[in-house]
């Protein structure tokens, strides 16, 4: 696995950060602070009762639960799942208009302007982390006043998903440029990472061997979700090796 990570880290151009995330499943308590933080950071609307009943909820990040054992000797494991930012993303080649692609920093990008809403990408995603906007989003007053101006509101008819908080990456770069310095490890903190009370999530540049995330990927505990599909996600899950 360490090998896989190194290989993925090296493919980027020189000095271009290669963003990746490591999530320590032994630390995650399933508290869902990340879910709440993500929704408010990224202007993700709630679907409402009727739409939710039709399975049309939108959560850029969710907590999957796994139960082990028989009641009452039950053990629960939690796994936060967001867009895995795959290097070999199944969503990309099926888009007829190139609205989704991988950029030089390894982000799987979704361009809402370009999207025509075929939903092929969402249907081809093995992680089911892409969401179609059946309706234009609405926020009851006064919640409309808390929207994040750095994140565009997605109109109806397009697919949206986790961006690794691309706006925060941009912001961190602008701030670094303003100070005339390079981005330092830890400057970019997606909302989920920032809000995790157990500090289970780490985000950073995996092509920088000294970064926290690179060290975690080299720990021998890192694995990827549905690894056998060969999607090469940029999200790595740390588990006790067994």
């Amino acid at each position, binding site marked *: 696995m360490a090998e896989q990570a190194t290989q993925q880290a090296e493919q980027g151009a020189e000095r271009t950060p290669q963003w990746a995330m490591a999530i320590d499943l032994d630390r995650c308590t399933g508290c869902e602070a990340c879910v709440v933080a993500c929704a408010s950071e990224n202007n993700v609307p709630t679907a409402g009762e009727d739409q939710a009943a039709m399975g049309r909820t939108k959560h850029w990040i969710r907590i999957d639960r796994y139960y082990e054992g028989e009641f009452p000797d039950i053990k629960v494991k939690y796994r936060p799942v967001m867009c895995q930012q795959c290097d070999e993303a199944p969503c990309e080649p099926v888009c007829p208009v190139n609205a989704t*692609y991988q*950029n*030089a920093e390894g*982000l799987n*990008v979704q*361009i*809402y*302007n*370009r999207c025509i809403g075929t939903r092929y990408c969402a249907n081809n995603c093995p992680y089911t982390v892409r969401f179609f906007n059946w309706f234009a989003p609405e926020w009851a007053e006064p919640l409309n006043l808390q929207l994040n101006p*750095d*994140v*565009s*509101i*997605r*109109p109806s008819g397009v697919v949206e998903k986790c*961006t690794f908080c*691309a*706006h925060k990456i*941009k912001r961190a770069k*602008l701030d670094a*440029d*303003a100070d005339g310095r390079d981005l330092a490890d830890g400057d970019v903190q997606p909302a989920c990472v920032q809000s995790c009370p157990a500090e289970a999530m780490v985000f950073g540049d995996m092509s920088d061997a000294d970064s926290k995330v690179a060290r975690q990927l080299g720990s021998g505990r890192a694995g990827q979700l549905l690894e056998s599909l060969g999607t090469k996600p940029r999200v790595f899950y740390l588990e006790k090796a067994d």
Partner: protein
Amino acid sequence: MKGKPAARASRLGPASAAGLSCTSLWGEFLVSPAMLLALLLLVVQTASAAEQPIGFSHTAHIEKARMQCTDCHEGATSRDSAGLPSIRKCMLCHQFIATDLPEVVRLSEYWERKREVPWERIYGFAKTAAVQFRHAPHARAEIACSQCHGDVASMTVAVKAVTHTMGSCIQCHRENSATDDCLACHY
């Protein structure tokens, strides 16, 4: 489009009445063909400006008051948005300067009512365009305001002199080997 001439006319209204009744200066202004022509040119020149609540003048402030763009648009070099100045800033000067000019009188009326001037916005993208523009990196790249806003220093109220489209953004980005990654502007 028709807004500005109307604003000019209303500005002349009280003054011309005064001109007819007493001051010879305004009387002369009304009859002089040269002045009328000048007025006409002014109207034509500003015909594409938005209708603003006050006949603000960029020229007056840059040439007479010797102000810089960033004195009023504080974020234009350092932040995302350039921003429009608060009336507090205007009144730092206009409590004392040019208090008798008709447009400044109208400005102080807003001040007395403790209101901001409801400026009509000129530039900007529709929310649905999902475009994120940032002034700071352009200032760092030493791109002049005029490349994207025209010669504002010689305008009265700002006129939309440059149309911003994705094509114009990308063209300059390519010429300056700046980014053309979709994610740079759309997120």
